[in-house]
C-alpha cells in the first residue's frame, strides 16, 4: 500500500472512530460493566481497522459496528465464563463514568426487567429502545427478518409489562416511589 493509500485509510478510520466510538462504548456500557465495555469497545475498533474495507459508509456504519460489538461481547463473555461468573458483573453498570445515568429505583427495576428477558428479545429491546435503531437495522444486526423483530419486540414489551407490574408491586411497600416517578 502506498503512502497515499495509507493516509486515506488513516483518515477514514479516524472519521469512523471520531463519529462512532462513543456510541459503541455506550452500547457496551449498557450491556457490561466498565472494564469489559472498555475492552470490547477497543476490540470493536481493532476489528474495524483490520476490516476497514468492509465497514460501510454512514448511515450503515453504526449498525455495522453494533453488530461487531455484539459478537465481540458474546465472545468475551464465553471466554470469560471459565474464570468468573461474568453474568454477575454484566448486571452492573457503574454510575461513576460521566454520561452513565444514575437510575432511580423504578428505572432500576425496568432495567433489570429488560436484562431478565430472553437473549434475543433482550437484545432487540435494547437496540430498539436504548440504541434507538429502526427495526430494519435491528433485523440486519440480528440476522432475522423484519417481521421477526416486530413480533419479538411486541412480545417482549408484553412480557415487560407484566414483569414491571410484578416488580413494582414487590418494591412498593419497601421503597415508595417519589412523586411523579412511578411507572404507570
Amino acid at each position, binding site marked *: 500500500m502506498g503512502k497515499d493509500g495509507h493516509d486515506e485509510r488513516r483518515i477514514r478510520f479516524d472519521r469512523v472512530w471520531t463519529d462512532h466510538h462513543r456510541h459503541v462504548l455506550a452500547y457496551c456500557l449498557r450491556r457490561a460493566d466498565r472494564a469489559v465495555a472498555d475492552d470490547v469497545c477497543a476490540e470493536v475498533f481493532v476489528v474495524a*481497522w483490520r476490516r476497514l474495507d468492509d465497514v460501510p459508509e454512514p448511515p450503515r456504519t453504526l449498525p455495522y459496528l453494533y453488530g461487531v460489538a455484539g459478537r465481540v461481547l458474546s465472545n468475551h463473555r464465553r471466554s470469560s*465464563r471459565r474464570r468468573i461468573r461474568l*453474568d454477575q458483573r454484566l448486571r452492573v453498570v457503574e454510575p461513576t*463514568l*460521566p454520561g452513565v445515568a444514575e437510575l432511580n429505583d423504578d428505572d432500576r427495576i425496568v432495567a433489570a426487567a429488560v436484562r431478565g428477558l430472553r437473549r*434475543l428479545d433482550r437484545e432487540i429491546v435494547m437496540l430498539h429502545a436504548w440504541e434507538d435503531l429502526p427495526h430494519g437495522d435491528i433485523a440486519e444486526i440480528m*440476522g432475522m427478518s423484519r417481521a421477526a423483530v*416486530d413480533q419479538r419486540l411486541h412480545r417482549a414489551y408484553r412480557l415487560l409489562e407484566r414483569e414491571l407490574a410484578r416488580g413494582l408491586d414487590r418494591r412498593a411497600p419497601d421503597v415508595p416511589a417519589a412523586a411523579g416517578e412511578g*411507572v404507570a
Partner: protein
Amino acid sequence: MTYDLIDRTVRRANPVPDPARLDHKPPLALGAHAPEGLTMQLIERPTDQRPPDEGPRRSRWVVLAGAAAAVVVAFLVGMIVANRDAAPSAPADSIGPVETLDTAPPPEPTLLTRAMEFNPIPAGEYVIDTDGDPDSTLLATLTIEGDRWFAAQPGVGRDEPNGDYSFALLAAEVDRVNAAGCDTTRFIDERGGDLTQWTDVDGAGARQVAELLAGMPDVAVIDPVAEMTAFGYPAIHLTLGMPDCGQRDHGYIVWEGPTFGRNYDPGMTAEYWVLDVDGTTVLVEASWHADSLVEDRNALWDAIGTLEITP
C-alpha cells in the same frame, strides 16, 4: 400500560442515554495514534526476504522441517477439533447476534398437508398453506425446535406432557367467525353442527374480522383490538380468554377456515394477529392453556419469531 407507555418507560431506563456525554478514553490507544501503530502491525510488516533455496543440503533440511511442521499442524488440528467437540454450546443468555458458520445449504422446508394432520413432526422448517389451495401462492413458513410437535394443516400444535394438547401456532384464511358465543357452541352440540349462527367473513378486512372476534358475547377481551405491524404487514392484534360454556374437548368454537375449525377449552388464551397481506386477510393465532408449561410457551414464542408470510 400501553405499548407507547412501556416503550417510554424502557427508554427512560437507558443506562447511557446520551453517548455524546461520555468523556472517556478506552485503554487501548485507538485515538489519533492508533492507525499508525496498527499500520505498523498489520500493513507495514516486513515482507519475507529469504533468499531462494540453492543447494541439496538445504533442501533436505527444508523437507525435514516441513515434515516436522506437518506433524505439529496435525497435532494442533486434532486438539482444536477435540476442544470444539467438548466445548459447551453457546450460552443461552449471551448477548448479541448469534454467529453461525454452518455453510451447508439448509434443507428444503416441508409443506404441511392434510395427510400429515395431527401426526408428530420433527424439528425443522415447515410451510403452511393458509387456505389449503395449492393454486394460491400465499404461504407461511416457520421453524420449530425440540419435540412433541404435531402438524395441523394451517400450522403446528404441541402435545403437552399431561396428555392434553395445545395448538400453538396457526396461520389461516378465515371464512367464518362464531357470532353467538356459547349459544352457538350449545347449538352445534345439540343440532349436530348446524352453522347458521356464524358470520361469514370470507373476503372481509382484517379489522372487521378482529372486531367480530373481540365482539363475541362470551369471551374475555384480554388485549383489545389494536393496530400494529406484525410479521411485516399491517395487522390488528387482540387477545381473548375463552369462556366456560360447559364445553368439553376444546368444544368452544371461534373461527373456521377452508381446511380447519378452531375450538377451545375453557380458560384457554388465544392471541391473534389479523394480517392484511396485500389485500388477503390472514389470521395468525398463538394459543395456550392456563397451565401450559413455560417450556411449551417459550417454544411457542420461538416458533412465532420465525414466522414469515409470503404473499
